[in-house]
Each structure stands twice: as C-alpha cells, then as structure tokens.
C-alpha cells in the first residue's frame, strides 16, 4: 500500500512539522517514507507545503503531480491542490482560512474545524495535531501508538511533557472531523 499526501497551508501553521511527525509515525510502523518540503521563499513566510509518502515498497519519486490525500489549510493551497487529488481521493480542509468551498464531486471531502477547536481548547499550538488526528480517522494509515512514538522522536526531550497534550489534540481531531 502507498499513500501519497500533500499538506499545504501558511508558514507557521505547523505544516512541515505535521508532515515530519506523520513521516516518523510511518517509520515507526515499519514503512518506507519520504518527506519533501517546498523549502523556498515559502519557508520564510507565505505558503508552505510538504509531500509525505508512506509505502510498503520502495518509494520512487518524492515529487508528485497527483495525490491520494490533500490536507489544505488556506485558500491559496486549495486553489493550487484541489485539482491534483486523484479521483476517489480525499480532501481534508479547515474552513477557517477558506473563502471558496471545494467544488469537486469525484473526491471525498471532509471539513475539520481545527483552528476554532484549538482556540476553544486553549491550545492553539496543537492545531496541527488536531488536523493529523482528523486525517488518521479518515485514513488510518498509521496507528496512534506509532504517532506517539513519532512525536517522541520528533520533539526535543525538553518538550516531551507536551506529548500528553498532543495526544488529547489527536483524539479531539478524530472526534470532530466530519
């Protein structure tokens, strides 16, 4: 099985780190993984995106023109990536940054109010973990246990006390996606 994912939004939303945690989770689950960021001027403000591929086999290209799943966190990214989702694929978006709703009928579209929820939870930094939780509800490509292992690998030790909070956010994301 291969899952080809694009995560796109604003720099600072945790797009790259969400991708990194997902990639590490895949690694913990014994999968082949690649994480390819758009590392250009995007990283210095503006839009940011990362392609994450998890597979049971050797991964060929880290750069793709179509995706199984797109996680979209702002309008610019929706404009750019909605058309790149494979027919029958999955679009997950947070309506917070969206002014024009997605229009495609041949894909599965899910909304997740992660921005609002993270503010309600008084944990705006766990925004991306809420999104990741939502993804894993819809596409259970890695087990939660491996995501927590991935978090442990990704976060520096001084931040390990934040892991329980991230777990709460992941589970919240699984609840609220619809």
């Amino acid at each position, binding site marked *: 099985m291969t899952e080809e994912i694009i995560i796109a939004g604003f720099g600072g939303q945790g797009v790259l780190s969400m991708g*990194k945690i997902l*990639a*590490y989770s895949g*690694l913990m689950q014994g999968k*082949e*993984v*690649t*994480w*390819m*960021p758009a*590392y*250009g*001027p995007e990283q210095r403000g503006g839009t940011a995106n990362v392609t994450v591929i998890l597979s049971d086999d050797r*991964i*060929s*290209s*880290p*750069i*793709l*023109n*179509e995706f199984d799943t797109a996680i979209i966190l702002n309008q610019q990214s929706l404009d750019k990536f909605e058309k790149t989702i494979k027919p029958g694929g999955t679009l997950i978006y947070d309506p917070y940054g969206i002014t024009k709703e997605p229009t495609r009928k041949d894909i599965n579209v899910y909304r997740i109010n992660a921005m609002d929820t993270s503010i309600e939870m008084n944990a705006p930094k766990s925004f991306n973990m809420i999104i990741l939780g939502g993804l894993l509800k819809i596409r259970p490509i890695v087990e939660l246990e491996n995501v927590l292992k991935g978090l442990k*690998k990704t976060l520096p030790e001084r931040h390990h006390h934040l892991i329980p909070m991230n777990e709460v956010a992941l589970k919240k994301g699984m609840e609220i996606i619809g």
Partner: protein
Amino acid sequence: MSEEIKLMKGNEAIAHAAIRCGCDGYFGYPITPQSEVLETLMEVEPWKTTGMNVLQAESEVAAINMVYGGAGTGKKVMTSSSSPGVSLKQEGVSYLAGAELPALIVNVMRGGPGLGTIQPSQADYFQTVKGGGHGDYKLIALAPASVQEMADFVGLAFDLAFKYRNPAIILADGVIGQMMEKVVLPPFKARRTDEEIVKECPWAAVGKPKNRERNVITSLELDPAVMEERNIHLQEKYKTIEANEVRYEEIQCEDAEYLLVAFGSSARICQKAVEVARAQGIKVGLLRPITLWPFPSKIIAKYADQVKAMLSVELNAGQMVEDVRLAVNGKVKVEHFGRLGGIVYTPDEIIEAMKTKIM
C-alpha cells in the same frame, strides 16, 4: 535490529556519515540548500568525540584552501557548498587535482547561473564532469539519488579519493539535500592515527624523517617536459579509474523499447514516470548513472542496440545528454528534457516529454 533506522534530510546524512567514516576535518561556509551540513556538524560537535575539526571559514575560497592544506598532510578532509559557492572553489579544486590530493567536495546544486535561486537544479553537470577549474583534470563524481546514498557515498567518495589520490565530488541537489527519508548510518570508523597516515599516505607532508626525501605537495612545474609527464601520468590514472569505477543502476531495462537516462533526484522522478508509463503499456526503462565521471558509456552504448530511442532527463538545458549522445554515437535518437532555474518536473511531465520527443 542491529542498526537504528533514522529519518533525516540528505544534508544531515552527509554530516553524520562524515563523522562516522573517520573524517578529520570539515571546512565550509553556509549557503542554501546545503546549510544543514555545517549546521548538523556544529550541533553534533564531533571535535568532542572523534576529534574531527569543523570550521566555518570566512569564505568558500578559504574553505577549499583549508581542504588543500589538510589533504596535503594526508588527512581525510572535506567541504560542501551549493552551486555559486562551488564556483568559488574551482581554483582550489583544480589545484587539488593537479597536486593529486584526495579530498571530498559536496555540491548540493541550486538553480543558476549567477546567484540564481535556492531551488533544486542539476545545471552544474558540465562544471563537475568537464572541468570547472582549469587544466586537464577529472573529479570522481558520485550522484546520490536518496538520503541513504547521501550517507553511503561519503565513505565511498573518501575511499576512492584515497585509492586514486584524486579529489572526489558528491553531486546532489536541493531535492536530495532537503528531503527526509529513512537512513541507516554507516558504522563508526575511527579516525586514522598519525602512524597510519604515514603508512597509507607516503606522499603526505607530515614532517621529514631522516630516511626519505622531502615530500613536496604542489601543482606547479615550470619545466614543460616534466609537466607533460605529470599530465600523462594523470591521464593514465584517469583511464584506470574509467576502467574500474563506473557505477550505475538499471531499472526495468530488460525489455525496454525506450530508455530514460537520469541521475540524482531526476532519476527518482523518472522511476515514477516509468511505473506510470508501464501501467499504460509503454515499455520504458531507466538507466541511472551513479558515477557521472567515469560515465557509464559502455552500458548506454549496449542499450543503443536494444531501444528505439533515449531521453536524457535533467534539471538543466541539456548537459548530460551530450555524454549520452557520445556513448550512443548516432545509433539511436537521443533527446533531452529539462526544466530550468529551480523548477522541478513532475512524473507526468516526463511521460508527456517522452511521448512528444522520442515516441
């Protein structure tokens, strides 16, 4: 599992592999998209463990000349940079080749010419394999296509550099440098002791003992007859390397009617194109040169008897395609497809180019 599998960027893998293969010194200067090499070394602080020196030089020119100095004493030394920085190093690279010094240069290419852009490119192929600096010299050029190869090729490049007393280069690009993949790092190898260096590098300038003549490290020779001899010796050495060190990978080539030729990140994207095209019933294969010099001309010539046409896929305006054409020697059509200035093609663009250019 005996070896821990890690997830890291290609640039980070270069740094970790350098420490682990017993590198004595790294001299560099930051530039996107390769800055993580120096950053990782500074973070790991190998001078506290293996004793490896890490220095941020005042410029790329200083860094390559520090490499020259270190290499002259038989030490395992390296530098890394990206395209504009590698251009600055070219005088030093030519001197290293002229003085027959083993060293490792890493180029994580970005779009040019000039300062260009920080996005990936493969437009330094000519610079790497056709010279770059002045004079008749060659660099042993390795082109990694994965983070694992970024790690593996550091040790390999040093081995080849010392085996042939010749500088080696790892030619990567922004894709391979910046992406994260699984990697198993090479096992730790101790740095060589002074005694081991004297034994393995009898040419090294390590202080003159009474029982031998002075070792002189220089590329200068004012007597043209002697200089010609030296050049002939270099050319003979290059022939030996060409005979022994060609490396390549063949992917789905056995029954191929069309052949893609691509190195580094392009080879990865081409591999996907091959998968998709095969699903459409097109019999296409991929030949990936791993050594760009020595170039796998013989195997490409062999495929000229099998396939209908070849497409050289490179992130440049058509550089390696010249070597593919030389190898094929007119037997079949060889075309080029590229994107320029930091734009990276997607697999479907490659399939489209294949259909319009060679089918």
